[in-house]
């Protein structure tokens, strides 16, 4: 999908605004220049409302006013609100072996009426889709289905991104479970895994029906009892899975609340002149986190000792020694190395025979000799199969064997180092824990009632959070038990069915459902893992390229990845994990989230626009330019809302990449920020055709005028 045009009437401050977007593949960037409070975020909401309805508005539209706040009631007490989006879809079909590309244009119109009162009640919106052609517009049924296919609603936040909000994919002040859930949801939606989920549910239902048949066959017998129990267990499983999902969500919600209270306590401490205590607490928390990360790394190193080459080499030393004696014998007999083939292959590539004759392909004699040598190689390969393996084995394993002969154990040295590291870190961690508890006690003793109230609320939220975590563990355990019991019962049921005359057909049906379920489940896992890996790799490449120009960050950031648990992790030297809040500067954090969003869009292979509000905030210099350049390259259509500050320094890239540039102005900014009076009393976004390098009567800003005066003087 490519966005072509949008039009808004009475959508908040977009009273009457038309936008157009570049659809030129060579100039795929559209820049909407706008200062803060000039309608950027409103346009982002407006586009999403047009495409997805109220569900895409903040708070799902609940209590979110749409009509202009300064609407004059004399114009009517029910405000008509309309958003129109025109877009182009490209389809491909095969015609006599060729691929034919067809482009069609559509217009989507969404409208609603809203009361002008404090409650701002709104009618359900109406949406219509039209196919545009030479002669006019033809209506199309089920517009939601078309939008869902082209811009899946689950990926809405990937296609329409608020640069600041997007940081919640990685920011430390957002609960881990929330970050995970957002990344997971985006990736799973991208892969369309809902289809496989539905298929698994469908097959399970079929399996339950076949199980009912088995119950009837063995009426009143052991078979009947087992089939009945399996039926009950299927109901239990569904209930447990629903409970588990609920427990996870509740845990996430309370986790968020605990984080929120922590922030409030920090603010209260600063207000209450307890900055020192707050500073010490923050420092202690950071120290604990740092040590926990280091301990986790040391634990991994310990675990890696059991997959290391050294443990195998040391344990196998006596046996491998005997095997090597055998190989040495062959070496002494001249059977190792096997050199015939490499020598002949070398001659062929040099195109000169050992005797000095040419082996060139164009030469008739050379061609003949080449064929002869190739035959020698083929014959030799067949005869030397074993010798070849042994040669490789001898030279491949010999260096390590020599190490093993030294008598010292490499593994024991590695183990000693790991023990020292783990013990040392544990001592530091215990000490940091004690320090933190002492600070907590100081906090408990503070006479400040606000802080004590907040701490009490925190304790309650934490209890609730822990209760849901414990509930989660208990349900997971019950599900594991249920799975085991079901496997045993199924094995017994199948055995009893085999003994029944009518059982064979039912058994065959059951086997089919079991096989199909296994195939679907493994497909689900495989797709998730493979695609996750692709997004992770691409995100890393884009991220590293974006921040490559920043020597300060370049020195500490090694790579970034998305873990199997859907966490976005950044690594520093020696594979230490970095804290995005503390170790990454604002530009890197922004680059990381943009890299994630662009990678997701690219891997999804959905031709979709990326509409991003303030993508370059907190960035500057080379990194800012690098982010912009990479984003333009990786996106199929890029629409950026940029402030004047964000544009500064990137003008040449915009000259080169942008097909459309225009400016939005908020007349309410006069006289503080605008030089000239726009002559408009209402609060509304006004468009002018000024690009990133020009300004007019309407959009000339005060800071710009002052700068000009300074330059003139």
């Amino acid at each position: 999908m490519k966005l072509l045009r949008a039009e808004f009437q009475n959508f908040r401050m977009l009273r009457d605004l038309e936008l157009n977007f570049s659809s030129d593949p060579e100039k795929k960037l559209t820049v909407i220049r706008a200062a803060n409070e000039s309608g950027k975020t409103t346009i982002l909401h407006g586009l999403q409302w047009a495409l997805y309805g109220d569900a895409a508005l903040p708070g799902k539209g609940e209590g979110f006013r749409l009509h202009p706040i300064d609407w004059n009631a004399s114009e009517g007490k029910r405000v008509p609100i309309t958003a129109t989006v025109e877009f182009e879809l490209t389809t491909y079909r095969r015609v006599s072996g060729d691929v034919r590309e067809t482009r069609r244009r559509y217009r989507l119109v969404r409208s609603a009426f809203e009361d002008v009162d404090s409650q701002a009640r709104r009618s359900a919106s109406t949406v219509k889709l039209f196919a545009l052609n030479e002669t006019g517009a033809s209506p199309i049924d089920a517009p939601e289905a078309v939008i869902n296919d082209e811009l899946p609603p689950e990926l809405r936040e990937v296609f329409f991104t608020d640069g600041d909000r997007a940081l919640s994919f990685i920011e430390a002040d957002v609960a881990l479970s929330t970050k995970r859930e957002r990344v997971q949801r985006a990736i799973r939606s991208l892969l369309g895994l809902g289809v496989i989920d539905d298929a698994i549910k469908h097959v399970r239902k079929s399996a339950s029906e076949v199980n009912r048949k088995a119950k009837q066959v063995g009426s009143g017998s052991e078979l009947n009892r087992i089939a009945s129990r399996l039926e009950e267990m299927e109901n239990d499983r569904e209930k447990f899975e629903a409970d588990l999902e609920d427990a996870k969500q509740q845990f996430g919600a309370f986790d968020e609340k605990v984080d929120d209270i922590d922030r409030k306590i920090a603010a209260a401490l600063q207000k209450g002149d307890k900055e020192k205590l707050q500073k010490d607490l923050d420092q202690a928390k950071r120290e604990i986190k740092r040590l926990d990360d280091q301990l986790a790394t040391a634990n991994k190193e310990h675990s890696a000792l059991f997959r290391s080459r050294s443990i195998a080499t040391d344990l196998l030393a006596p046996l491998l020694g005997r095997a090597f004696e055998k190989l040495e014998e062959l070496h002494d007999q001249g059977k190792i190395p096997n050199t015939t083939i490499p020598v002949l292959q070398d001659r062929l590539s040099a195109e000169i025979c050992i005797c000095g004759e040419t082996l060139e392909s164009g030469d008739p004699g050379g061609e003949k000799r080449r064929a002869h040598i190739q035959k020698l190689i083929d014959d030799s390969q067949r005869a030397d199969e074993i010798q070849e393996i042994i040669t490789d084995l001898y030279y491949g394993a010999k260096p390590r064997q020599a190490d093993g002969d030294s008598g010292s154990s490499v593994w024991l040295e590695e183990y000693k180092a790991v023990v020292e590291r783990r013990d040392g870190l544990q001592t530091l961690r215990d000490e940091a824990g004690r320090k933190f508890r002492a600070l907590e006690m100081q906090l408990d003793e503070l006479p400040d009632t606000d802080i004590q109230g907040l701490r009490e609320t925190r304790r309650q939220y934490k209890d609730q959070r822990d209760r849901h975590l414990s509930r989660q563990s208990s349900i997971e355990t019950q599900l594991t038990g249920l799975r085991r019991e079901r496997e045993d019962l199924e094995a017994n049921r199948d055995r009893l069915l085999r003994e029944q005359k009518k059982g064979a057909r039912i058994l065959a049906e059951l086997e089919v459902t079991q096989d199909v379920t296994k195939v679907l489940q493994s497909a689900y896992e495989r797709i998730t893992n493979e695609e996750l890996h692709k997004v992770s790799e691409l995100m890393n490449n884009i991220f590293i390229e974006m921040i490559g120009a920043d020597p300060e960050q370049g020195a500490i950031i090694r790579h970034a990845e998305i873990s199997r648990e859907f966490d976005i992790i950044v690594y520093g030297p020696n594979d230490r994990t970095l804290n995005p809040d503390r170790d990454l500067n604002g530009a890197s954090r922004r680059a990381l989230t943009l890299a994630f969003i662009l990678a997701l869009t690219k891997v999804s292979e959905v031709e979709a626009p990326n509409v991003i509000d303030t993508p370059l905030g907190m960035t500057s210099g080379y990194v800012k330019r690098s982010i912009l350049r990479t984003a333009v390259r990786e996106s199929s259509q890029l629409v950026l809302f940029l402030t004047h500050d964000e544009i500064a320094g990137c003008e040449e890239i915009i000259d080169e990449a942008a097909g459309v540039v225009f400016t939005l102005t908020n007349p309410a900014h006069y006289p503080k920020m605008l030089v000239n009076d726009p002559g408009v009393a209402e609060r509304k976004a006004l468009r002018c055709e000024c690009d990133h390098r020009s300004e007019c009567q309407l959009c000339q800003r005060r800071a710009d005028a002052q700068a000009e005066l300074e330059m003139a003087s």
Partner: protein
Amino acid sequence: MADRYFNPFQAIDINVPVEFHEAFTRYCQRSADAVIDQSPFPRMVDLWFLSVCVAARLGLEPADTTKYDTRKIIDGSIFGSDPWRVHQLMLIAIGKTGDVHIVSEPRKMMTLASGLAVAGLPKVIEMLKDGDAEPIWNLSDAVDSLLRKEKAA
């Protein structure tokens, strides 16, 4: 070495008696959230390979795997990530049989290694359990003693 010999075990399944499956579930990390001290092995193949090594070290005879009800834990393509294990499996086969020609028979080599794994698994499980600490420390101490004992001998 030609590429086709890079991993001769590529298409061969690694099977383990059903009675050991619980140990594989318990002692191998199945997710990034796994508690490493309780589940020391990064992957199932690591527990399997260590069992082969321990059996070889202790001079145990390979068990007859046909007598067990076995299930696949993984296939031989896993050795692609640690190619040195391919060499070690070949050297174990040569060392155990005294015959270098066995290197051209990957199934025979894998049967021998699987037999050693079955013989070594009870010992490794004992090493994980035997001690007052978590499995990772119990196992580390046991491997330490095993290597030192032989050195001293």
